[in-house]
């Protein structure tokens, strides 16, 4: 994907303490000291992506048919969701999950409700179709602004359909927030976030003021399994439309006061010049079975022509 983005300064976090340690040190995760911070609102940004394990929904030209594709919660967002729920559990506050997408994206908001978020908001508007990261970040920052005061925003590292890792940082820039990307652990002390970032060859610890935005790395704790109570609540909501609307607020561009010209295809400077479909190799997997191990190994070695690879 060719992208002509304006020069955005990506890291604005105030780095107070910078330490590089060996990757070996990663295992010793420091236990978080719990100091009750005054946290009221936590936002978490999640996205619905096509299920990679399903082949359905790919157009012949290689683009994704989002209506047909099997859908799932972006796997990276699961870590963000866990971070938000952990913050709520440890420091208090209410978690709001925010998403942008077609009405079908309510599915992932229901999933978030099962996991324990308190309310959700979906930005759904036809004019948003074909948004690139710039337009998406613009629309989402308007949603965040419309939802009022907040202390922390959590985003996934990136999505599995776009893989840009740009939307989180762009929102932080638009909102003028300090941000920590690739965060794998954090604690809140005296109103400040102390976060550990993954960097090449180790990690660094940064401190920043709140409100702030954190994109959560996939080395953070995986999302805890939903509770029975959450699953029951969501089934209740699905049965009861009026109750459901209390938990899932659906907004349009006009509701959040966004300029349609800056959204969707019009607001996206990214041009997709060409998409190449990588042809399937197919037939290269042979399952050897029912033979003694030695025989199988020798057959594999004989067939693989390893010397060719070595050369």
């Amino acid at each position: 994907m060719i992208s002509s983005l304006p020069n955005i300064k990506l890291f604005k976090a105030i780095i107070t303490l910078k330490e590089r340690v060996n990757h070996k040190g990663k295992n010793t995760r420091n236990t978080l000291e719990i100091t009750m911070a005054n946290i009221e609102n936590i936002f978490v940004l999640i996205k619905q992506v096509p299920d990679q394990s399903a082949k359905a929904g790919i157009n012949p030209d290689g683009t994704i048919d989002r209506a047909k594709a099997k859908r799932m919660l972006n796997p990276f967002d699961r870590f963000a969701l866990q971070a938000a729920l952990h913050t709520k559990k440890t420091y208090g506050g209410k978690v709001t999950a925010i998403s942008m997408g077609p009405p079908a994206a309510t599915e992932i908001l229901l999933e978030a409700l099962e996991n324990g978020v308190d309310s959700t908001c979906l930005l759904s508007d036809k004019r948003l179709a074909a948004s690139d990261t710039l337009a998406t970040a613009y629309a989402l920052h308007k949603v965040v602004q419309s939802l009022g005061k907040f202390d922390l925003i959590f985003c996934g590292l990136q999505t599995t359909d776009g893989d840009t890792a740009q939307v989180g940082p762009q929102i932080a820039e638009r909102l003028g927030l300090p941000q920590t990307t690739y965060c794998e652990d954090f604690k809140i002390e005296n109103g400040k976030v102390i976060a550990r970032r993954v960097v090449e060859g180790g990690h660094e610890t940064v401190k920043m003021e709140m409100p702030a935005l954190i994109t959560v790395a996939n080395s953070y704790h995986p999302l805890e399994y939903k509770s029975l109570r959450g699953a029951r609540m969501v089934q209740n909501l699905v049965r009861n439309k009026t109750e459901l609307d209390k938990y899932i607020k659906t907004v349009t561009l006009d509701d959040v006061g966004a300029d349609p010209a800056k959204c969707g295809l019009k607001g996206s400077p990214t041009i997709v010049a060409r998409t190449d479909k990588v042809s399937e190799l197919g037939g290269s997997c042979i399952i050897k079975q029912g033979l003694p191990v030695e025989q199988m190994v020798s057959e594999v070695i004989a067939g693989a022509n390893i010397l060719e690879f070595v050369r």
Partner: protein
Amino acid sequence: MSSKDKIQYDVLIVGGGSGSFALAHHLVDLAAKNGTKFSMAILEKGKEFGSHIVSGAVSNLRVIEKLFPDYKTNDFPLEGICNESFFSILGNKKKWDVPNALLPKGLIKNGCAILTLSHVVYWMYNKLKEKAANNPNITIDFFPGFSAHTVIFEGDTVVGVQATEGNSGLDVDNAIYGKVTCFGDKGFISRDVIEHFKLRDNPQIWSIGVKEIWQLAPDKDYFGKVWHTLGFPLFDGSFGGSFIYGMKDNKLTIGMVISLDSENPNINPQQKLQDLKKHPWVQEMIKDGKLLRYGGAVLPEGGFYSLPKKFSVAGAILLGDALGVLDIERLSGIDKSMESGYQAAEVIHECIIANDFSESKLSSYKEKLMGTFVGKELKEGRYFRMAWQENPRLLKSYLPKIISSIDKTNPLFGFLNIGLTENPIKAIFDAIRLKYLMDGNEVGPVKYKLDYKHIVPNFKPSAEIKTNGYAKETVYSREDAVFYAKTKYHEGNKHIDEFSSDTCIKCIKTYDALDKQTPCVSDCTAEVHRIDILDNKRMHGMSLENCIQCRTCEIVCPEINLRVRPTAEGSGPDFMGL
């Protein structure tokens, strides 16, 4: 989620199987007819309803017809109707179809439906969802991916179950309560109820069933044909046999059921199934075919005498396999399990109307169920299992003779041979007694005791099977088979408890000295148990991510040192389509 009230329902069903859904459907129908208001929850340990269901399955549709009179026009997932039913004895090379006239009626399956039970359960789940959505009086919550881990007792009343692992105390977000809790599992959790109330005088006899689905070559079609076999490759005196069903779209079910009270400590059911496939007759069927799925599960074979004293206790009802209503003589369990759900629904409906879930109110369930065909057929087949087991001559010396005569000449010579080499009077007496016992007549006390204590392991090598030429690609190692069971586990899964590692080390030593594998290693259906060498000590290790949750290891462990718990987070195999 600020309010931390109890998660309470009127009816709580543990386990989403055929019996549970029959209960749910009939209860909804009754409630709709009478305008009863109630709430119900169904827990299922698989990630989807049906994903942990594996069964043969040839079944009489009598209960389905009762529950869904319009099932034929309602995309009921039918694999076919049996039009030719055979009972065969397999020799090393040939097979002999026993004439139908000689067979007990229950073994003739003509007219029965061939099913994929996981699809049937999923279908029943969808139908139930539709039914509940159309009735404002009825609330049904489905909890696939939540398994019951502990039963919550209040005094001597079952009040609900806890759906999280560990003993960290009551977790209000994961404890679920029912005025009546219905256990429709295969003993994962209902055994706690049975143990708590000491309901079972005779222990359950379990057997293990393993099954494969094959996509056959396009020119092969066995649609509607059903075979049940005896003999090859079980020459070690184990009680068991195979089943082969032809399904639509050129698919074939091949499976084996082997009783776990076998004297042979190394059954290895999965490999026995592979041995079966080496038989020339099976080879001919699956030649150029493709293995699609593999799965396994235990089934309760104890029948009439292993039934619990009470079918219901205060606050709880037992269904299907938790009860053990499978009838091994007729090889039918699905219809009986569904009937148990059907009868339970009527009892529970009365309880809901009276708002009385006391033990006395629930106890009419036993009487009702035993009054139906379930009670009648179980009673008729009550000696079937023991008839074979009390007299080891039947499987150990008579059957091999018949088998060798099948290979050589004609089974009649086998019978003749038995008469000549054995004591002829004894043989005739054995045959008559077998026939009488199988038909459910009283002919003196049955000597076999239903207890694992009486099983003496037989370490002598059993008669080897002889195979002459088979296509190697049709035979799968146990490691390969796991791939076809599609197991998937969450991080940190640990669902098999080993109580004492010292006991395991001792047991391994004993079996090593005999040059045999320990039962857990050899009988595992999915390459879970293994021997690790640590500090020069041979220890027991487990690869839990392979487990297909059949519970065989728990049953065969000679030291009673293992316990298989249900998993969490919907982990486990995916049996959809088995």
